[in-house]
C-alpha cells in the first residue's frame, strides 16, 4: 500500500486558509500513522513565499501549480490537476477542506480517480491497517465510519482538525500541466460579493443563531435582530438562523443551520429564540458548547444545551452582550 497523503491546501487572498492548514495538519498526522509523507498541493500565481513556509504546518513536500490557468477557480481544471498529482505522489489518501470549493471539485476528482468520496469528515485515522474516516450523516443524526477499497478521497470539515506546528524543511516543487484556460469546461467568470466581511456560519468559531422567537425583523422583531447582530459583533461570531426564519424570508438561506441548511461545529453555539426542531438540532449538536435562550423551559433545545437561560430574548440578549463585552475587556 502506498503511504503518502496528498493534501490540497486551499488559499484565499494569497495565503493558505485556516481550513486549508487544518487539512494539512490532519494529512501530516495520517501520513505519520501510515509511515509516509504529507504532500501539500497549492494552486495559483503568487504563492511561492507561502508555499515555502508549509513545512511549519506539517508538509513534508510542497507542490505548487502556479500556472495562470489556476488563477481563477474551475471545477474541472482543479479536479484534473488533483487527479494527476494523486497518481504522481502515489497517494493512499487525498484530502481537501469541506468548503464550498473543496466539496465542488473533490467529487469530480474522486470520480476521475474511479473512486468514491468520504465527504465532510470529522475524523480520519489508520485502524487495522486501513484508513478509516468518520463522517456525520443524516445531518449528524448518525456517524458513519467508512473505508475505501483503494485510495481514500476525503473532504474534512473546517474547525474540527488541529493545525500542526512542525519544523520540517519542505522542498517546493513546481507542477506543470498540459492544459490551459481554453481547455476548461467551466470557469468562474465573476464573483458577486456578499456582505463584505461577513463570517460564514459553517466556518465561524462562534455562531449566534436566531429563531422565530425573535419575530419579524421588518416589524416588531427589528430591535431583536439588531441585538443579535450586536451580540455577534461583540463575540466575533457569525449569525445563523433556523429554517422557520429563513423560510419566512427574515434571513438569507446561506445563514440556515440544520439538516436542510448548514451543519456547523463551532466551539460555541448560542441559540436565541429557537425551540429546537429535530432538523435544527441535527445541524448544530456537533458544537463544542451550546447555549440556549428561550422563554419556554420545556423547549427541546434545552435537551442539547450545556447552559440555558429561561427568559425573553428581548431582555436576555442585550444583557448577554453587555456581560460578554465586560469579560472580553478584562
Amino acid at each position, binding site marked *: 500500500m502506498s503511504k503518502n497523503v496528498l493534501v490540497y491546501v486551499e488559499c484565499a487572498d494569497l495565503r493558505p486558509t485556516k481550513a486549508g492548514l487544518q487539512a494539512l495538519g490532519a494529512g501530516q498526522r495520517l501520513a505519520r500513522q501510515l509511515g509516509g509523507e504529507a504532500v501539500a498541493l497549492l494552486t495559483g500565481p503568487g504563492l511561492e513565499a507561502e508555499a515555502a513556509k508549509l513545512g511549519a504546518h506539517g508538509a513534508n513536500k510542497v507542490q505548487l501549480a502556479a500556472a495562470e490557468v489556476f488563477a481563477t477557480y474551475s471545477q474541472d481544471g482543479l479536479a484534473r490537476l488533483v487527479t494527476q498529482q494523486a497518481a504522481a505522489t502515489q497517494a493512499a489518501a487525498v484530502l481537501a477542506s469541506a468548503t464550498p470549493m473543496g*466539496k465542488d471539485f473533490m467529487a469530480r476528482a474522486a470520480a476521475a480517480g474511479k473512486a468514491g468520496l468520504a465527504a465532510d469528515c470529522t475524523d480520519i485515522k489508520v485502524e487495522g491497517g486501513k484508513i478509516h474516516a468518520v463522517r456525520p450523516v443524516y445531518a449528524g443524526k448518525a456517524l458513519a465510519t467508512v473505508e475505501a477499497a483503494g485510495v481514500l478521497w476525503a473532504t474534512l470539515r473546517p474547525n474540527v482538525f488541529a493545525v500542526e506546528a512542525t519544523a520540517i524543511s519542505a522542498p517546493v516543487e513546481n507542477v506543470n500541466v498540459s492544459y490551459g484556460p481554453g481547455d476548461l469546461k467551466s470557469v468562474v467568470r465573476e464573483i458577486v460579493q456578499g456582505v463584505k466581511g461577513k463570517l460564514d456560519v459553517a466556518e465561524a468559531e462562534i455562531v449566534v443563531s436566531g429563531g422565530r422567537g425573535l419575530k419579524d425583523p421588518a416589524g416588531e422583531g427589528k430591535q431583536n435582530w439588531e441585538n443579535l447582530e450586536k451580540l455577534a459583533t461583540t463575540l466575533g461570531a457569525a449569525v445563523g438562523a433556523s429554517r422557520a426564519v429563513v423560510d419566512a424570508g427574515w434571513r438569507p438561506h446561506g445563514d440556515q443551520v440544520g439538516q436542510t441548511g448548514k451543519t456547523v461545529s463551532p466551539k460555541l453555539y448560542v441559540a436565541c429564540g429557537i425551540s429546537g426542531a429535530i432538523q435544527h438540532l441535527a445541524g448544530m449538536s456537533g458544537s*463544542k458548547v451550546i447555549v440556549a435562550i428561550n422563554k419556554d423551559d420545556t423547549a427541546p433545545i434545552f435537551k442539547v444545551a450545556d447552559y440555558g437561560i429561561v427568559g425573553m430574548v428581548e431582555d436576555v440578549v442585550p444583557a448577554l452582550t453587555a456581560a460578554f463585552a465586560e469579560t472580553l475587556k478584562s
Partner: protein
Amino acid sequence: MEIIVCIRRAPTTDARIKPGPDGKTYDPAGVNFDISEYDKFAIEAGIELKEKHGGKATVLSLGPTVSSKELRTAIAMGCDAASLLVSDAQHDAWATACALAAKLKTMPHDLLLFGWNSVDNQAAATGQMVAELLGLPCVSVTVALEVKDGVAHAERLSAHGNRERIAVKLPAVITCQKGLNKPRQPNMKGLMNAKKTVIDESPANAPANGVVTVKLDPPPPRPAGKIVGKGPEAAKALVGLLHNEAKVV
C-alpha cells in the same frame, strides 16, 4: 430542450435515525420517505425551463421499486416522463453516479439537474461525478439559473455569502440549492397524469461502492446541561461559566 432531473428517495428530515442490528445501516422502522429536499428545487427548475423553452423534463431515480411514489410526485408537479433504475442496495455517490451515467448515455440530454446534496448520505457529490463520467461541465450549489442560446448561466453559492457566476455550454450538469426557486405543489391535472404515467423501469447497472460504511454509530450523547437562571439577571453568571468552566470565551 431535453431536461433530465435526477432525484433520490430519502428519509424525511424529521425522521429519527437509529443504527440497525447490523451496525452498518439504519433501522428503517418508523422512517418515512420523500424526495430528498434539494431535489425538489431541481424538479422545479426543470419544469420552469421546459415551460419557458419547450421540450421535455424527464425524472430519473435509482432505488427500490417503491421509489415510484417519489417519481409520481415529480410527474404530478409537472415532469413529463419517469425512469427508475431498480436496486435495493445502498449505493454511495460513486456507485449511484456510475449507474445514472450508464443510463444517461442512452437518453438524449441537454441539461441534467440534481439536488446539490442529499439529506441522508450528504456527500454532495453525485452531480459532479456524473459530469465527470459523461465529460460534461458542471455548476454545483446553484441559486440562479438561466439558459440562453445553448449556454447555461448559473450562480453558485460560495463561501461568505459570495456568489460565483459561471457560464457553461450545454449539455451540462447543474446541482440546485435552496433559493433557486419555490417548488410548486401538484395540481389536479398533474395528479391525474401521475396516476396514469407508466414508469420506465430497468435494473440498475451499479458497480461496488467507492466508500464502504463499516460502522454506523449514534452521535455521542451530550452530557446533561444546566439552566443557569431566569431572565437577564442570569447573563453574568452564564458568561462567567463560559469563561471559567467551559473556557470558550
